[in-house]
């Protein structure tokens, strides 16, 4: 039984814990033993991105130590996965004693959709949503960094009662970018407005968005503009189709 350590990520932990519940229960459904290293806090990305490499390094080495004992690590957020798989290498390139532990961690850290597709090789055709839903998909930017392309759409379309609506400019950033959204509100606002207009044009009631940052941003703008579109992580949608209750554990 593959043991999977859940890397929840700080935003998902604080704002979308039900996504963590969904991810854990889905992995258990597919035969994994899910553990949660409670000492985890933050992978260091906000500090690295804003030009504080030594602060980021301290959090990176802490993260490497906490997750060292586990065979596989799965995270519901592409950007944090990219941080571990791409940026840790840059952060620790001058630390010879961290090379091996870092490379070990990189080789066993997966984004959720990637893990389902490449490791568990799931087939979602057996599952069906309770009712037909028109659904579109936002390609979250950091999937670029980890080499994930259309796996999310493919899996989504396997689920029964999903009426898929392609999103115009699906790979255009939503404008979150962490502190970018706070520091440059006019630009970030224009970008996310473009994104929700594209979403509105699909007519879909739900947009799948596999990153907590994008979800905060897109759902926040939808609400400000009184758009009723729901923004969900694919894990939440899968839980609906699989009859998994994510409100209670």
């Amino acid at each position, binding site marked *: 039984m593959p043991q999977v350590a859940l890397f929840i990520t700080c935003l998902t932990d604080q*704002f979308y814990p039900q996504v963590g519940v969904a991810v854990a229960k889905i992995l258990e459904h597919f035969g994994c033993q899910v553990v949660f290293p409670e000492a985890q806090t933050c992978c260091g990305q906000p500090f690295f991105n804003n*030009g504080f490499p030594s602060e980021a390094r301290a959090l990176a080495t*802490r993260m490497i130590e906490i997750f060292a004992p586990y065979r596989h690590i799965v995270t519901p957020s592409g950007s944090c996965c990219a941080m571990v798989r791409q940026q840790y290498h840059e952060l620790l390139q001058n630390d010879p004693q961290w090379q091996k532990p870092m490379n070990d961690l990189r080789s066993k850290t997966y984004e959720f959709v990637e893990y389902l597709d490449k490791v568990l090789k799931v087939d979602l055709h057996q599952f069906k949503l309770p009712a037909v839903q028109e659904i579109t998909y936002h390609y979250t930017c950091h999937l670029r960094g980890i080499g994930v392309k259309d796996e999310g759409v493919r899996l989504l379309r396997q689920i029964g009662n999903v009426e898929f609506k392609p999103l115009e400019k699906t790979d255009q950033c939503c404008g979150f970018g962490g502190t970018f959204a706070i*520091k*440059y509100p*006019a630009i970030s606002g224009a970008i996310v407005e473009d994104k929700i207009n594209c979403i509105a044009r699909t007519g879909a009631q739900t947009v799948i968005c596999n990153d907590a940052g994008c979800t905060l941003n897109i759902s926040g*703008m939808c609400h400000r503009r009184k758009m009723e579109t729901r923004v969900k992580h694919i894990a939440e949608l899968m839980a609906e189709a699989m009859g998994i209750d994510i409100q209670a554990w």
Partner: protein
Amino acid sequence: MASIVQDQLPDPNANAVSDPHAAKFDFHSLSVKAAGDERLTNALNANTLRQYEGRRERLLELPDPDGMRSLAGDIKQHTLDHLDYYLEQFQSSVEGNGGRVHFAHDGAAARRIIAEIAKQAGCTRVIKSKSMTSEEIELAHHLQAEGLDLVETDLAEFILQISHDKPSHLVAPVMHKDRASIARLFNEYFKTPYNDDPPTLTAQARIFLRNKFRRADLGITGGNFLIAETGQVCVVENEGNARQSVTTPRVLVSLVGIEKLVPRLADLAVMLKLLGRSATGQVMTVYTSIFGGPRLGGEKDGPEEFHIVLLDNGRTEILASREYRETLRCIRCGACLNACPVYRKIGGHAYGSVYPGPIGALITPLFQGLEKFKDLPHASSLCGACYEVCPVKIDIPKHLINLRRDINTRRISGRSERFIYKAWAWGMKSPWVYYVLGILQKFDLRRRAHKTGWIRSLPPFVAGWTQVRDMPAPPKRTFHQIWKDRT
């Protein structure tokens, strides 16, 4: 036949949109204004997407697009790593062909050299093809101030010249203008009836420009590439005006940055496979010219004098910085601009420099000073679309982060901001502090949500968020707490 309104064209930089010599560059005002300009947004959306999609289609036609990009990146990196060698080889090749090489330390030197060439040769009527390097040093402005009759022959640059405007995109300089504004401009300038039909407008410009081509005695071009082995310049274009500038005037000057070198013609072939596709989704541009010296005995076309002005203007400093050397690989294709969600919303003028977009966010601070342009590395969501499209694989997001690091280590950022990040990072090292901060933040945010589940106004430090969008209130328990309660 359009009447020739005036012989001496207006100074192209008289009403500069943003003054490059201003002490303070106000990115915030420029970008807010641009983001709110609906006409600009529509023009940018249509043009960037057309080029972005065109690039994707054409690049997929190559058997190994990713491998080709790696190869092109390696060629440029190798050349940069040995630039001293290749510059020497280039110089002796040019001189062997009967041409002259001039090294210009900075913009002022380049302008002086070119003005002197014109004076020595007795030239007064200049035709100039599109060159961002010439915009970088404001060459046209200065030559006109010296009394030369100079016309921009690239249609977009001509439009900019007669409207006293500046380019906003590396490859499509008037991307910020729509058909109607160009029609109005021609209507005012040529005193002809308003007509927004593109072939008609083009024909008007063509007649005007051909008269200039016939009479010009000095041609000025830029250069997309320099070939060290043969001492030649390669210029790509769609209109034929660069080729006119090369073949008809008596004297030819090509102004090119030193980083444009490639070692051999074979290496040029790799670059040419990628440039058109990356820039506009063209397999190749309509004209590709490779030229390298004055007219030889028996040849019908070509100048009597051929000069290359090689520009430094800060490039050798970036070269010396091993970290940022990679940014000099840029072949000025504009693909990163077309892919960038920020550029797509604010356009080129908001960057305050002739080099906008993602590559501009790197080289503008590197060329002109990080203090003045400290917003540019931060005005990015680090989405990585630029790196994904760059034909020479410049890791733009990595360098944006490096510049952000420099902004901190050089104390260009605010003290309180640096303190808050450091304190926050210190707190994240402890699960207990993480827990307490989480409780405090959750309490504050849930209070602000007034039981609606949504926050309309955040505290001052992070109020930028709620300026344009709402924030969902965090739920009662974090995942950490849910897990703990379960076990």
